[in-house]
C-alpha cells in the first residue's frame, strides 16, 4: 500500500516536472505566437459556415514546411480545438451544425437563442468547453506515459495488429456503413503504396510518371477530398444565414447562478463520457456528443424540456466534445495511431517534418510532446479570452456569404498544393483526387478513412513485412505473441459485433453506441463533413422534438 502511494507520488511529480518543461517550450515567444495564430484561425473557420477544420488544416499544411516542428504542431492542433469553440457559436446562434460534433448542440442551443437566452447558452458553452478540455488534457498527461511504457515493448507483430485494430475501429465505428468504411481504408492503404517500394525501391502504381515516385502528396490528397469535393457538394446549398437572433453582447453571456447549478452535473458527466469515447479509436467528438446528449436526456427528471431550450442539453455535449477532442491526441501522440482524419493530418505534418510518430516520440522529442500539452492549456485560455469579449466580431463573421468564401478557398487550395513541390503536377493531382472524392461521396462513401489508411499504410506494410521476416513466414506469429493476440481478438470482436448488429436490426446503422433518434439527427449532417443546410437542420430537429 505504502509502495503504491509512493509510486503515485512519483508519477505525479514527474508529470509536474515534464509539464513545467512543456510550459517553458510553449511560452517561447515564437511558439506562443503560432499557437495564438492557430487558435485564432481555428475559431474563425469554426464560425464560418461551410469551412471545416479539415480543409483549413490541409490548406495550412504547406505553410508549416518551413516552420520548426514544435511551432508547426502547436499551430495545427490549435486550429483543431479552436474550431470547436467557433462551431458552438454557429450552432447556438444560427441553428447551423457547421461541424458534426456540434449538431446536437443545436437541438437546445437554438431554442435558447429564440427565447433570448443565446448569450447564456454561449457563456455555459465556454465554461463547459474549458472544463471538458482541462479534463482531456489531464488525462493525456497521466495516461500517455503509461501507454508509451507498454508500447515500447512492442515488436513488429504487435505494432502491426495494433494498427489493424486502429484502422478497423476508425473505419467501422465512425458514421455510415461499416463495410464502406473498411473499403475506404483499404483504398487509403493502396493510395499509400503509390511510389517507390521502401525496401527494393522499385516504383509501384506510378504509371510511368516520375512525379509519382515520391508517392501521392498528403496535401493533395487532403485538399482533394476535403477541399474540392467538399466545395462541390456545398456550392449553392448554403443559403444566406438568418442572423435575426445573433445579437449577443458581452453582458448577456454571464450565466445566472441557477443556470450554472443546472449545468454543473451534466457538464461533469459529459466530460467523463467524452474522455471515455476518446480512448476508443474512431469514436471521436461527434459520437461522444451524441452519446452524452442521449444519456443526459435519459437520466433527466424532466426529459420533455430537452429540445425546447434546456441548458443541460448545451452543457453536456459541449463538455464531452471538448474532452474528447483533447483525448483524441492520446493515441495519436503516444502510439502513433490516429483516431480520425484530423489526427491523421497531424501525423502527416509530423512525418513531413522528418519525425517518426510512435511510442518513442515522447523520449526523442519531449519538446513536441510536452510543449503540445502545455499549449493546450494556453490555447484554451486564449480561446476563452477570444470568445468572451470578442463575441460580436465572431457573430459578424457568420455573415460572410459562401459565394465569396469558396472561390477564395479554391485559390488557397491551388497555391498551397503548388507550393509543396513548386510543381504544377500537384495541382493536377488535387483536381483528379477531388473528382474521385466527389464521386465516392455520391456513392455513399465517407472520405475520412482514406486519410487514415494513407497515413498508416507505409508503416503498416513495413511492420507486416518485418514481422513475417522475423517469424520466417509463419502467419501464426500474430496469434502466438500474447499482446498481438489480444489486438487480433479485439479486431475479430469488432467485426463480429458489427455483423451481429446488422443481423439483429436489418435497417440498423452500424453504430451501436448511439440511439436511433439521435442518429437521425446526426445523419442529416452528413455527407458534408463541414456543413449542413437549413433543411437538414429542420429534419434533425423533428425526430427529437416530436
Amino acid at each position, binding site marked *: 500500500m505504502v509502495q503504491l502511494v509512493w509510486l503515485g507520488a512519483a508519477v505525479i511529480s514527474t508529470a509536474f516536472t515534464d509539464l513545467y518543461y512543456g510550459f517553458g517550450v510553449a511560452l517561447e515567444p515564437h511558439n506562443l505566437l503560432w499557437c495564438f495564430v492557430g487558435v485564432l484561425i481555428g475559431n474563425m473557420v469554426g464560425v464560418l459556415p461551410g469551412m471545416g477544420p479539415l480543409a483549413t488544416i490541409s490548406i495550412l499544411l504547406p505553410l508549416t514546411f518551413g516552420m520548426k516542428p514544435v511551432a508547426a504542431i502547436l499551430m495545427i492542433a490549435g486550429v483543431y480545438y479552436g474550431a470547436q469553440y467557433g462551431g458552438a457559436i454557429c450552432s447556438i446562434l444560427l441553428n447551423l451544425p457547421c461541424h458534426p460534433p456540434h449538431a446536437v448542440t443545436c437541438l437546445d442551443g437554438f431554442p435558447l437563442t429564440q427565447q433570448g437566452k443565446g448569450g447564456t447558452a454561449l457563456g455555459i458553452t465556454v465554461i463547459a468547453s474549458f472544463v471538458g478540455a482541462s479534463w482531456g488534457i489531464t488525462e493525456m498527461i497521466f495516461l500517455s506515459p503509461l501507454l508509451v511504457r507498454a508500447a515500447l515493448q512492442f515488436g513488429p507483430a504487435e505494432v502491426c495488429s495494433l494498427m489493424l485494430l486502429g484502422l478497423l475501429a476508425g473505419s467501422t465505428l465512425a458514421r455510415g456503413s461499416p463495410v464502406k468504411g473498411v473499403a475506404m481504408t*483499404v*483504398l487509403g492503404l493502396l493510395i499509400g503504396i503509390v511510389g517507390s517500394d521502401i525496401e527494393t525501391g522499385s516504383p509501384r502504381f506510378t504509371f510511368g510518371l516520375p512525379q509519382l515516385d515520391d508517392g501521392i502528396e498528403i496535401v493533395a490528397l487532403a485538399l482533394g477530398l476535403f477541399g474540392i469535393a467538399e466545395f462541390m457538394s456545398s456550392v449553392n446549398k448554403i443559403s444566406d444565414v438568418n442572423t435575426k437572433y445573433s445579437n449577443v453582447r458581452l453582458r448577456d453571456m454571464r450565466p445566472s447562478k441557477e443556470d450554472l447549478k443546472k449545468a454543473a452535473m451534466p457538464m461533469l458527466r459529459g466530460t467523463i463520457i467524452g474522455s471515455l469515447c476518446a480512448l476508443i479509436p474512431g469514436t471521436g467528438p461527434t459520437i461522444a456528443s451524441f452519446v452524452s446528449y442521449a444519456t443526459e436526456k435519459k437520466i433527466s427528471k424532466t426529459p420533455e424540456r430537452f429540445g425546447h431550450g434546456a441548458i443541460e442539453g448545451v452543457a453536456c455535449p459541449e463538455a464531452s466534445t471538448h474532452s474528447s477532442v483533447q483525448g483524441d491526441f492520446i493515441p495519436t501522440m503516444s502510439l502513433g495511431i490516429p483516431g480520425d482524419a484530423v489526427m491523421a493530418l497531424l501525423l502527416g505534418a509530423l512525418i513531413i517534418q522528418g519525425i517518426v510518430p510512435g511510442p518513442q516520440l515522447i523520449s526523442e522529442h519531449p519538446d513536441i510532446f510536452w510543449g503540445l500539452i502545455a499549449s493546450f492549456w494556453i490555447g484554451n485560455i486564449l480561446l476563452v479570452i477570444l470568445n468572451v469579449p470578442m463575441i460580436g466580431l465572431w457573430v459578424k463573421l457568420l455573415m460572410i456569404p459562401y459565394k465569396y468564401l469558396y*472561390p477564395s478557398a479554391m485559390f488557397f487550395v491551388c497555391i498551397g498544393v503548388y507550393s509543396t513541390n513548386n510543381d504544377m503536377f500537384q495541382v493536377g493531382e488535387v*483536381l483528379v483526387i477531388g473528382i474521385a472524392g466527389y464521386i465516392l461521396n455520391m456513392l455513399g462513401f465517407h472520405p475520412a478513412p482514406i486519410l487514415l489508411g494513407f497515413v498508416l499504410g507505409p508503416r503498416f*506494410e513495413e511492420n507486416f513485412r518485418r514481422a513475417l521476416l522475423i517469424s*520466417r*513466414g509463419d502467419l501464426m506469429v500474430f496469434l502466438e505473441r500474447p499482446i498481438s493476440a489480444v489486438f487480433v481478438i479485439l479486431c475479430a470482436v469488432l467485426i463480429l459485433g458489427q455483423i451481429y448488429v446488422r443481423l439483429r436490426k436489418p435497417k440498423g446503422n452500424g453504430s451501436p453506441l448511439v440511439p436511433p433518434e439521435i442518429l437521425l439527427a446526426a445523419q442529416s449532417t452528413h455527407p458534408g463533413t463541414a456543413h449542413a443546410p437549413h433543411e437538414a437542420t429542420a429534419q434533425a430537429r423533428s425526430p427529437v422534438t416530436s
Partner: protein
Amino acid sequence: MLRTLVHKRDFYAGGVMILMGCGVVLQARSYNAGTLMHMGPGFFPLILGVILTLLGMLILGTAAVSGGDRERILPEQPEWWAWTCILASPVLFIFCGIHGGMAPATFACVFIAALGDRNATFKGAFLLALGVTTFGVLLFAYVLKIPFQIFKPDVLEWSNWFGWVPL
C-alpha cells in the same frame, strides 16, 4: 431483379470497388510477390486488391438482397454549372500559371470559381478575383517568397499563350 439493381446506389458503389480491386490485382501481378518470409513489392498490394474486390462484392451483394425503391445517385439538384466552374478553376490555374505567372493564374482561378454560384455576377466575380489576387500575390510572392513568377516576362506575347494552336 437486374432492373431494380441498376437503380441502387450500392450497385455502383460495389461495382466501382470491384473494378478498382481487380485493376490493382492485375497491376500488382506485374511486381514480384516473393514469399511470405521475403515479401516482394507486389505482395501487399495483391492482398489489398483482393480484399477490396471482396468488399466490393459484399456491398453489391447487400444491394442485391435488400428491397426498396429506386435511389438517387446524383443529388436532388445537380449543379452541373457550378461543378464545371469549380473543376475549371484548377485547370485554369495550371494553364495560366505555366503561361502567364502567379497573378494571371490566381485571377483566372478565383474568377471562374466565383461564377459557379447561382447569384454570381460578372462584376462581383471580377472584384472578388481582383481582391484575392492582390492579397494572394502580396502574401505568397512577397511574404512567403514562393518561387513562382508574378508575371512571366513574355506574358503579353500572344505566341506564348497560344503558340501551340496550329494556325
